[in-house]
């Protein structure tokens, strides 16, 4: 047994990475130290959702993950979201102000639409309530996601 840093292998945005981490290190810090700064440190307590990433297609707050936990997992950060559909809807509906919460919102919305392409209002509310926007642009964010549902943008991915 030792306290030395450990090597982990993880797939991030489609690329297999080998990273050296402290065993007590949180994955938010690992990502940002690796230059992937799209996951934002906000509350660092699992409350605000600004560091949301997708782990095996499931939204998880990176501040609530030990780096050791993601060994051999498939990670997507905002840098890896090549599909621009959600971003364009956010732009179209002015669903961002300062932009700090936006990567977390976009990844959460993307995962919502992958899992529930026809999400009803209650499901959308449940998912989007995971993120906090201190500019309080909530209605515009709801409008952007509603637009994507109404346009059936993600139905083909799911079916």
């Amino acid at each position, binding site marked *: *047994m*030792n*306290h030395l840093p*450990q090597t982990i292998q993880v797939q991030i945005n489609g690329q297999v990475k080998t990273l050296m981490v*402290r*065993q*007590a*290190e*949180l994955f938010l*810090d690992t990502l940002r130290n690796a230059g992937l700064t799209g996951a934002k440190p906000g509350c*660092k*307590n*699992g*409350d605000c*959702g600004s560091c*949301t990433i997708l782990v095996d297609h*499931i*939204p*998880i*707050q990176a*501040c*609530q*993950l*030990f780096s*050791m*936990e993601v*060994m051999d997992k498939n990670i997507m950060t905002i840098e890896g979201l090549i599909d621009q559909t959600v971003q364009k809807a956010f732009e179209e509906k002015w669903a961002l102000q300062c932009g700090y919460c936006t990567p977390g919102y976009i990844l*959460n919305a993307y995962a919502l639409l992958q899992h529930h392409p026809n999400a009803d209002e209650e499901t959308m509310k*449940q*998912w989007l*309530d*995971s*993120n906090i926007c201190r500019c309080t642009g909530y209605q515009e964010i709801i409008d952007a996601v509603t637009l994507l549902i109404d346009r059936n943008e993600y139905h083909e991915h799911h079916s």
Partner: protein
Amino acid sequence: MISFDLQYFQPNTIEDAINIYEQFISENKKPIYASGGTEIISRARRNEVQPDAIIDLKNIPGFHKCEHKAGKLQIGSAVTLNHAATHSNFPLLKTVIQSIATQTARNKITIGGNLASSLPYREAVLPLLLTDSTIVLATPKGAITKNIHDVFPFNEHLKELELMMEVHLDSKLIKHPHFWIKKTKQSQINYPIVSVAAMHIDNEIRIATSGLTANPLRMKQLEKDILQAVEIEDCLDQIESYLPSPIIDDMIAQSDYRLFLFKQIIKDIAINWKGAS
């Protein structure tokens, strides 16, 4: 970040997990079991806990089961709250879980972690208390099964090397009529001032609550009183005497207000269900 160092283990068997735990104890070090680990991370970041080792139970087969088998709903302790809500087919459990933390957080928080939390709320336990669940515990001598009322709260009743593996409950109970309410100070996503879960099972009205005292409670004496009372007000006056510890009085809500809310909720439940019982 977590400022101190620790060792992180992901054993593949329960035997390995217990062995690692025992080894650290024998060295006068502090190991801690984790499945979701969210509370450990939050508290470690604030230096409220400083474990020498995290023993992550997620890789152990069986800790992820969530199925109906042999007439029992069986849920492994590493099952996430969202997975339990979706796959347990237990309407009250689903409703209660959907009020805990956020959708994203529930992808990480587990049933075992919620029950073993150091916070007073642990609302996922309420449906398990109402259905008189059994807890399967791993011990160095093998698995044992105990009634939930004998082992919860874990911090008071579990021995050092005992560890929750699964919770089992009678599949027949899950479809009975239920009631759930969570009163918070402001937003819906918050710790409760008081939460109440109730089930109407045969001729019984079963009641469990969180937020009122230091631990979630099943209110068995109150359940009897409600059934026997001619006037519901008579049993409401007795509630405080049935509580094993003082009502929480903090910046979220004063104890008098918590009690007031609880009595109003009990009154509503009794009025709605008494006729049927």
